């Protein structure tokens, strides 16, 4: 659910032409027949799959499996800022 929110936020903050375009690309990119359609336009399939992948690997559990722990990075940052009086 958290990751759906991240994608929604990403789309919501975009200007409307990009938002509409990405909605269409993502809808196609999640379906085999849609991917086949996207493949006909150079670069578009990559963009759609890149955004879908971004959403997938944004999830902390998925990222942790690849050696990246965003929660630990944030916690360390917060502790350093508190301890050293950083802004």
């Amino acid at each position, binding site marked *: 659910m958290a990751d759906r929110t*991240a*994608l929604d*936020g*990403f*789309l*919501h*903050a*975009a*200007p409307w032409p*990009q938002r509409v375009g*990405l909605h269409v690309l993502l809808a196609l990119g999640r379906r085999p027949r849609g*991917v086949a359609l996207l*493949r006909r336009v*150079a*670069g578009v*399939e*990559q963009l759609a*799959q*890149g*955004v879908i*992948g*971004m*959403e*997938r*690997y*944004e999830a*902390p559990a*998925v*990222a942790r499996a*690849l*050696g*990246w722990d*965003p*929660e630990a*990075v*944030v916690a*360390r*940052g*917060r502790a*350093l*800022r508190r301890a*050293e009086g*950083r*802004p």
Partner: protein
Amino acid sequence: MSAELLEADVCVVGAGAGGAVLAAELAEGGARVVVLEQGPRHDPDGFTARPMQMMARLYRDAGQTFTLGNPPILLPLGRGLGGTTLVNSGTCFRTPAHVLGRWREEHGLELDGGRLDGCFARVERALSVAEVTPELAGANAAVARRGAERLGWSHGYLRRNARGCVGSGVCAFGCPTSAKQHTGITYVPRAQAAGAEILTGADVRRVVVREGRVQGVQARLAPGGPPSGGASARQSAAASARRRSAGVLEVRAPRVVVAAGTVHTPGVLARSGVGAASGALGRNLVLHPATAAFALMDEVVDMAKGVPQSFYVDEFAAEGIMFEGVAGPPAYAALALPLTGARHRAAMADYRRLAQFGLMVSDDSRGAVGERLIRYDLSARDVAKFRSGLAHLEELLRAAGAREVYLPLPRGVTPERARARDLKLMAFHPLGTARADADPARGVLDPDLRVHGIDGLYVADGSVMPSSLGVNPQITIMALATRLAFHLLGRPAPSAPTTDEEVPCPS
């Protein structure tokens, strides 16, 4: 709609690389300063180290600004106190001497011969600029270093504005340790401490000019928007009260400095009916278009552990080709990988062994910004630089021991056969859309960065630069803003440092 009125000696539009520096220097010099920033103040407690979330919060248009042309180019811009310095990689290069020489010869700007050295030194001290250590640079930089050493190519660790950095790996998505010394946490607090009033959520509509002389600025204030800040708690509270009650703000000031950034400053000037006489307003856009390749290594790289942009290879800088580090967490890599389908999934499964390095071109192409659209087509000459650069980038990564190299080109297209439309480009350094030139027929600004023919109206951002730099521009913008601040205060610019303080430029 009621209009709130403020008065100041100087009104600064924008709190990024140029505006924040200018505001702090002016306020500390005794001027009454009001800063109008369109974006919010960002609290580091809200930084999540998750790219997609942070792009939506920290970037204009969620980082989805792009140029129209061949090829389209993604142009991410920061939004808020700090501007793009909030989300850049922190790389600090002084303006190369050959660029300053060209500006003198072609545009009549006398900035070479060490004239900016004192301003650079002042900025570098303020931002704690220092070279990245190999340990902090991480394994991604070590891959590029190994390749450059095996090929005998010129290289080095980058200088950055960071203090107490622990290599969190997310400079572009909000530094969680506040180690990156962006202007939102350095110059903005200095400006406030010296009495400047900083208003966020202020969308400047026009600069008011009468009979060739600036009168002030008109802005719209976002109702119920983010809080604003002032010189003291009392002033902050007063400013917040104004923000809630007023929809329109007028700042009366005999001097206005527009620092809204290369993409938006031309719009502010055009809406104000100034700066168009030369025909250069909004034109001459250069971007430093960039791309990057991935490499699958034998060793674990963990590219996001360390400083993402910590190392450069400038062997081909004279040809307008610069290589610099780039890296990020898995979500970032998933977006950036130039692969699809099963190949994308396989590469992501090997994320820990992926390395990445970037290629940036000093462009001869010229684009234009309008109120809504940005136009930019890559010239044949710049396409040739990308062909050469991508071939060298592959050579670098193979020399480092890459098992596979993933170039940002369609399958089956080799670097030497790449066309503009084959290139997958981003750009981070828009410059030139209100360029300075001593000749009013060729430039928007005079050599003092004053709008030609308008008393009291100045510009202090990347738009003032007449050409590409070939290197990251943030401290060039800041040094020029420092110089302008001293000019407005009627004081000589900071003097050049002693020899042992001087910092060489690697390109």
